[in-house]
Structure formats: structure tokens, C-alpha cells
């Protein structure tokens, strides 16, 4: 372990600043805030603190907050699935086909990553608003003006805006997965007589599963943690964990409740990362057992 090819000594000095940064700005504050989440702290005049688990129990006990958690998880599932459906073909096209303007297209597809959520959300508000182009298009197609549905402040609108920003987080892992598959394998499939679809289904798809899983987890975690889109495009009717967190923090000044919401978000994220791994491990174990039993 530790290739000494750089021959530059002093690893302690080198990693110390980063360690210090993380210890002071992340680890300690997180620990403090974790403790805070079990108290009745309020900013302002100092009152005696009491221990409470209310900030956590409300998420399981109160139907309103239960709905919020369900909606948050649902948002993650919907966004990941939508990104997968749209992103897999896109990744395959980029990985396996070469065509003119491919590099430019890649560049264009990456712009959302650089422009950020706020400006994009502004754009979606303009697009989906009742005075926006989609509504105008619907009216032009014959929908009477009073009947144009409110597209903004709905769950699908939030999903669409999230997919807009997060699509490339699904495409990139799948892209590198497919690129990693030797072209000879697919050639072999075709040579042995399989149709293009069958080759894809039996060769490419299974081998690209690691990329799919990585992309899916990534988009899920990023979408449950997203704040701007649910806030701006979802509005008050589409509260998710992150918007409740911010509401508690800035309006109710209930910092412990906000902290608890943040920790809950972290826990859900950890589940999302760990669970697929456990499942894949289990599946592989079954495979091995099945093989050893079958002889």
C-alpha cells in the first residue's frame, strides 16, 4: 500500500489542512447539531433546555409530516426512474454511436450542471406558468383559455425540473459502464446470430448494471436532498423534507426541528446508498449457493 513513486515526504503536513477543515467545519458542527436536535433550543433569550424526541417522532406520528416523508421518497423514486428511462438510451447513444456534432451535443447536455438549480427553476416557472409558452401552445391547439391546467406547483412539474438538472448524473455512470464493455463481446453476440436487440438485452444490459445502479443511487440522493426545485416549482402544496427543514429554520426559528429533519435526510440517503449494495451482495450469494448446490 502506498506507492512511493512521488517521493514527496510529509503526508501529515499535507493532509492536515483538509483534516482540520473537515473537523472544524463539519464534524464538530454536525455533532453539536445532532445533540441540538434532541433539545428545545430556540435562538434568542436563553431558556433552560429540555430533552425531547419530538423533532424526530413527528415524522412518524403526525400524518402531515408522514406525508412529507412519503412525498420526499416518492420524489426520489420518480426522478431516478424518469432519469433512467430517458438517460439510458442517451448514454447508449453517446457510448456506442459516433456521429457529427457528438462532442457539441455532450457539451450542451452538460450545461445544466454549470448553470445551477436557481436559474433553471426560474426558467421552468416561466415555461410552465399559465402565461407561458406551454399554455400558449395548448391554447393554440384548441384548449379553451379557462381550461388550461395549472402545471406549476404540481408534483410532476417538480420531477420534470429535477430530471432537467439531474439527467446527466444518470447518463455519466451508465456511459462509462457501457464504454467499459469491450466491443468484442457485442460483436460475438451478433456473430453467433443474436439480433441487435437480443445482443443488447443479453450482453450490454447486464454488463451496464453497475452504471445503472450507481446512477440511480446518485440521482435518488440528489433529488431527495434538492431544495430549490421543490420550493420554487412545487410551492407550498409540495413540501418535502428539505423545504420543511428550511421553513423550520428560517420562519419558525425551530432550529432543533430543522436539524432533526436534516439528520433524517442524511439517514434516508445512507439507506439509499447501502441498501442496493446489501441487495446485490445477497443476490450474488444466492447465485453462488445455487451453483454450488446444483453441482
Amino acid at each position, binding site marked *: 500500500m502506498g*506507492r*512511493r513513486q512521488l517521493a514527496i*515526504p510529509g503526508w501529515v503536513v499535507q493532509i492536515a489542512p483538509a483534516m482540520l477543515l473537515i473537523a472544524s467545519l463539519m464534524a464538530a458542527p454536525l455533532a453539536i447539531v445532532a445533540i441540538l436536535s434532541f433539545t428545545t433550543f430556540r435562538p434568542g433569550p436563553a431558556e433552560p433546555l429540555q430533552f425531547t424526541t419530538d423533532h424526530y417522532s413527528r415524522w412518524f406520528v403526525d400524518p402531515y409530516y408522514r406525508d412529507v416523508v412519503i412525498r420526499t421518497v416518492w420524489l426520489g423514486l420518480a426522478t431516478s426512474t424518469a432519469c433512467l428511462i430517458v438517460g439510458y438510451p442517451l448514454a447508449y*447513444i453517446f457510448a456506442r454511436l459516433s456521429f457529427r456534432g457528438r462532442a457539441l451535443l455532450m457539451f450542451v447536455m452538460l450545461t445544466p450542471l454549470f448553470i445551477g438549480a436557481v436559474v433553471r427553476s426560474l426558467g421552468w416557472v416561466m415555461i410552465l406558468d399559465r402565461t407561458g409558452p406551454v399554455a400558449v401552445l395548448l391554447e393554440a391547439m384548441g384548449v379553451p383559455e379557462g381550461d388550461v391546467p395549472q402545471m406549476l406547483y404540481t408534483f410532476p412539474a417538480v420531477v420534470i425540473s429535477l430530471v432537467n438538472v439531474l439527467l446527466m448524473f444518470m447518463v455519466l455512470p451508465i456511459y462509462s459502464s457501457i464504454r467499459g464493455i469491450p466491443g468484442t463481446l457485442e460483436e460475438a453476440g451478433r456473430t453467433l446470430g443474436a439480433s441487435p436487440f437480443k445482443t443488447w438485452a443479453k450482453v450490454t444490459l447486464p454488463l451496464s448494471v453497475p452504471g445503472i445502479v450507481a446512477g440511480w443511487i446518485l440521482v435518488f440522493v440528489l433529488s431527495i436532498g434538492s431544495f430549490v426545485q421543490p420550493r420554487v416549482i412545487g410551492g407550498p402544496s409540495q413540501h418535502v423534507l428539505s423545504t420543511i427543514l428550511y421553513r423550520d429554520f428560517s420562519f419558525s426559528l425551530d432550529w432543533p426541528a430543522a436539524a432533526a429533519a436534516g439528520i433524517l435526510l442524511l439517514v434516508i440517503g445512507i439507506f439509499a446508498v447501502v441498501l442496493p449494495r446489501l441487495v446485490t451482495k445477497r443476490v450474488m450469494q444466492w447465485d453462488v449457493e445455487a451453483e454450488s448446490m446444483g453441482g
Partner: protein
Amino acid sequence: MASQMRRIGLRVALIAFLTLMVVFILAPSLIVAGMSLNDGAYFSFPPQGISLRWYTEGLFARGWLDALALSLGLGVASASIACVIGVAAAIGLFEGAFRGKAVASAILHSPILVPQLLLGIALAFVLTRLTWNGTPASLLAGHILVTAPFVLRLVLGALPGVPGNLVPAARTLGASPTTALVKVLLPVIRPAMVSGWIFAFVISFDNVMISLFLTSPRVTTLPVKILSTMDQSSDPTIAAISTVFMIVAIGMMLVLNRVVGLQFESVRAAAASRN
């Protein structure tokens, strides 16, 4: 004949799909840019005439330029500091021989895994107790925290590619460790460092979720200000400043493309992969 029809059909489907994708991806940005030129005093579609007045009048009001300046300054400062910290940590992690390296690596990458909102609250709480919150310094601290791991990741990915005998050769020829580092190693990993800097800048420039907790009414970044203004007014000035924002961001993209080529491989290394 049938297979040729199918081939043409596939081609058409492909082009249609890709066109749809491009429109989908570009639509929000284009409409914001378009609205910024709208002469009317509120959002309307189709736009009522073209005018640059939101750029010439609107931008200079209500602290937009202050927010822009702060975002730019924060971007440069946090990217630069994150680079120093990140490059040093990458070298230490790659080269050092010590037990618990996997743990150290996990710790150094961990800010990427924690929800930024949670990081924001945690920092806000601690910094407010120290009466230090709502200042450029508090924002800088938060931005460095979330950008340094990306730089670390990018540089760490480039270090294995450094030829194994390069630095030892320099040392043998008499270079001190510092000279070997600065004049031999750093130039070799420069593309990774530059892309690390640019990514850090963009992450800081775009950042909302941790900045929300670290700003104050007088000290605010551009994305946070745009977000809070969205709730209040529908004045096209917001579209104008957002277009300026986009120009800066895309400008950075172009620079990055010149340096390393924005192929998916280089972006993949920086994308928040949780594996």
C-alpha cells in the same frame, strides 16, 4: 428493402429523440435569456418587444451587482484555497504510507455525502454562537468545505498517471522536496488542478443550499438573492441578472473545455459519485 426502411426509421427516431433532448435541456436557459430582453414590465409570452433596459437600468439597482461581485469573489477565493488544501491532501493521501489510509480517505471525501442543508444548519448554528455568521468569511468557510473534496477527488484521480520515476529522478538530480513538488510534479498534474479549480469555482458560484444559511440581508450571494427575489417580484430584471449569471457559468465551461476537453470522462471524475 425492409431492413433499409427500418434503418431510415431508426435514424429518424434517433434524430427526433436527440432533438427533443436538446430542447428539453436548453429550454429553461433560453427562455430566461429571452425574457431578459422583454420590453414589458412583467413576464409575458410572447414577449412584447425587445429592450435592453433591464440590463442598463435594472442591474444597477437593489444590490444585484454587490451580490454578483460577492459570488465572483467567493468563487475565486474558495476555488483557490480549496485547490491548495485539496492538492496537498491528494498528494499526502496518495504518497503517504500510514495505516488507516482508507479511513482518512473516507473522511476527506465525506462532505460530498452529507446533505448540504444539514451542513448549512450545522455551520450556521456554530457560527451564529460565535457571532460570526452572515459575513463573507462564513460564506467562504462553507464554500471551501463543499468544494475541497471535489478538488481532492480530481487530483487524486490524476496522480496515478504520473510517471513513477519522475520525481525520484528530480530528487536524484539534486532537487529539494519543495522544488521537486513545485517545478516537477505540479506542472504534470496541471490539467487536473485547473479543472479542479474551475469545478470548485462553479460549485461555489452556483451554490445555494449551504449559502442560504450563511447569508444575511446585507451579505448575500447572487443565487440566493435571485431565489429570494423570485418570491417577491416578477420584474424582468431577475431574468437579466440570471442571464449574466449564465454567461459567467458557461464562460467557465468553455474555459474548462479548452483546458481538458469537456468529454464525459473528465466530468465523470468530478460528478458526486457516491461509490
